[in-house]
């Protein structure tokens, strides 16, 4: 019975997402695009943090690399997403392979700091290597994406069309990540999160599993960075900065770690809350800080935890 309700809710949500552009003003459409992009980013981190127990504080490395690869190829080579998106995903996955090779030897807070170190090194390169990266000003003038070839080419130049493109990528990412965490592979990841030594004793090569999760998470983060760059038409070094890693981690914690709905809710709250609060008061940072503290004290499992409690309380 509950299963049916879940499917119904899902279908309603997807239908709502499809008609959304016709119901709201353009600014709210742009917010939705950002929330969807950051949802992909936050979900990709959740695969590491929530499902595998890898507290990465350097997830911006993949997000930012995705942004720069996209800007670079779209500006110099092609704006066709059939080419650019695979390039971005391969690039981010390769970077994850390299960082993971080193970082996965450490654990806990040390892992957190090593991943941050790699992201900060990339940030430093992005700032200094200005001939390639545009330095602190980044790469501007990124065109809107194109799909298809020749006469069947379509340009996503309106905001509505771009929204649907992002929505499609979001749904694909969600389905992909959902099937990953639901597979035996996902079960193994959760096993590593809960007790890595036991998994090793059971004969699992936990390093390989963690590496696989790290690479998949990195690839999706790269995709999110690329989608953001197409939307803002600008790749900025800030996408690589530790504050970006911090922001996505906060999204995850606020939304609820270890679920795939949590990251979306968290992305929505963290992206939208400052926007609305700052329209009312210049002291929006205090409000944001207080909200965080309230979450920690009263909703330790994030928004998802709150919702679950509300559902369970009902007779």
């Amino acid at each position: 019975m509950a299963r049916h309700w879940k499917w119904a809710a899902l279908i309603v949500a997807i239908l709502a997402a499809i008609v959304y552009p016709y119901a709201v003003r353009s600014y709210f459409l742009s917010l939705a695009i950002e929330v969807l992009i950051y949802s992909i980013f936050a979900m990709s981190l959740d695969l590491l943090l929530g499902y595998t127990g890898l507290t990465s504080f350097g997830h911006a490395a993949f997000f930012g690399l995705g942004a720069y690869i996209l800007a670079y190829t779209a500006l110099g080579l092609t704006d066709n997403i059939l080419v650019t998106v695979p390039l971005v995903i391969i690039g981010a996955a390769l970077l994850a392979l390299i960082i993971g090779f080193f970082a996965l030897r450490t654990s806990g807070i040390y892992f957190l700091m090593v991943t941050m170190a790699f992201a900060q090194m990339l940030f430093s390169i992005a700032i200094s290597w200005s001939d390639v990266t545009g330095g602190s000003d980044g790469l501007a003038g990124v065109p809107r994406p194109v799909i298809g070839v020749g006469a069947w080419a379509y340009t996503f130049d309106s905001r509505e069309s771009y929204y649907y493109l992002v929505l499609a990528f979001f749904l694909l990412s969600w389905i992909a990540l959902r099937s990953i965490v639901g597979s035996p592979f996902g079960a193994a990841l959760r096993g590593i999160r809960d007790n890595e030594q036991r998994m090793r004793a059971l004969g699992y090569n936990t390093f390989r599993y963690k590496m696989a999760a790290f690479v998949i998470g990195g690839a999706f983060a790269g995709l999110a960075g690329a989608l953001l760059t197409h939307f803002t038409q600008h790749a900025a070094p800030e996408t690589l900065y530790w504050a970006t890693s911090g922001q996505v981690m906060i999204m995850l914690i606020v939304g609820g770690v270890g679920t795939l709905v949590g990251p979306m809710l968290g992305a929505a709250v963290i992206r939208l809350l400052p926007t609305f609060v700052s329209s009312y008061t210049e002291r929006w940072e205090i409000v944001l800080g207080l909200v965080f503290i309230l979450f920690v004290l009263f909703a330790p499992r994030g928004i998802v935890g709150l919702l679950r409690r509300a559902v369970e309380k009902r007779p």
Partner: protein
Amino acid sequence: MTHRKATIFTRRQFLRTLGVTAGALAAGPALSACGATALTAAPAATAVPPTAALTSVPAPTAVPTVAAPSLKIGVLLPYTDIYAALGENITAGMEMYFEEAGGVAGGRTIKVIKEDEGTAPDKALEKARKLVEQDEVDFVTGIVSSGVLAGVRDYFDSNKKLLICSNAGANALSRGAKTPYIWRTSFTNWQPNWPVGTWAAENVGKKAYISVPDYGAGANTITAFQNSFEAAGGTIIGVQKTPFPNMGDPAPFITELAAANPELVYCFYSGGAAVTFMKAWGELGLAGQIPLMSSGFMVEEDVLPAEGDAALGVRSGLHWALSLDNADNAKFTEAYKARTGKDANVFAVQGYDTGRAIVEMINAVEGDTSDVDALIDALGGISFPSPRGTFALDANSQAPKQHIYLREVQNVGGALHNVVIEDLGEIVDPGDDSKG
């Protein structure tokens, strides 16, 4: 939604302004005969330039305009993080002018909607969208960071929305990345550095070491100074690019500078980095030993009190100085100090001039902001007496054509201030990279 932050002028202020403006209009011919000093003596009257008043006497004050919708100005400036002080100064200067103008431009009540620029380009872009699409502002002004300016450039360009930039100086926006929809009331990074290069080679020394933060404005500073310095026979013996955004303790950088034995050091730091660099320079015993010259922002009035005596004798180029001798500046600096309790600085001047440029622009189109091209035409044509001298925009670079003043930090009556020691003439950005 945004009412609590919006500056709305009261009806009484508005009516009073109408009265004053009407009176000034009646005296229009007399005012224009009196020239600039008379104009500045009656600030509300300056809201309408005499020429416009003469050609279209009734328009700005005609009764129907009372019902005109308010003029919504989106202000995107940093109010948090490292650039917060700059945002506050620009805002204070701009709001000061709006009040002087009675809160009215082109017969419409001015309504300011402020948003936080922050430091991240994508978040600032989201704020710009909010201002343009949700608040439906007539145009946007602000932007301190060049990185943010690069990030919002395409949005204003493709949406054909006017952005009047009141700080960020990236050369590119006047050159390769120029768009008709972004104009600057501030400066280009090239402007304050290029004329100083010539002056330094002629008056200070021929061997210079440059130290700047490793970001866009730093790179603009290097090329501008190097171009004119070398043309005047100087040699750059070294360039030091320090990490951005966080420099940390500058002592190791300064030690290297000193060891290279330059005849002068030229640098550009701002905010916390400027103070930290300058104080370490003094503590390491180099103040007065190696001539230090800089882009004017490094020793501007916002950081000078914290820098202290280490800054004494530093010479810099900028488009304004606190001691600049003209009537508008005297009036402005006094009023600003009375208003904020602090000495004015170049950012406040930029805010003030931006406020006036906006009012003049809106007056020129008689409050009609529907045609962005007409708005841009009006903006390009304005000219008025400003604390920095005459304010006018260069149509090619879409930035002010303005005098650059060579200033020296001196002890003026017990406090450190910049004193103008030479006017380096009117400097207009070439609009291309031909001069660095």
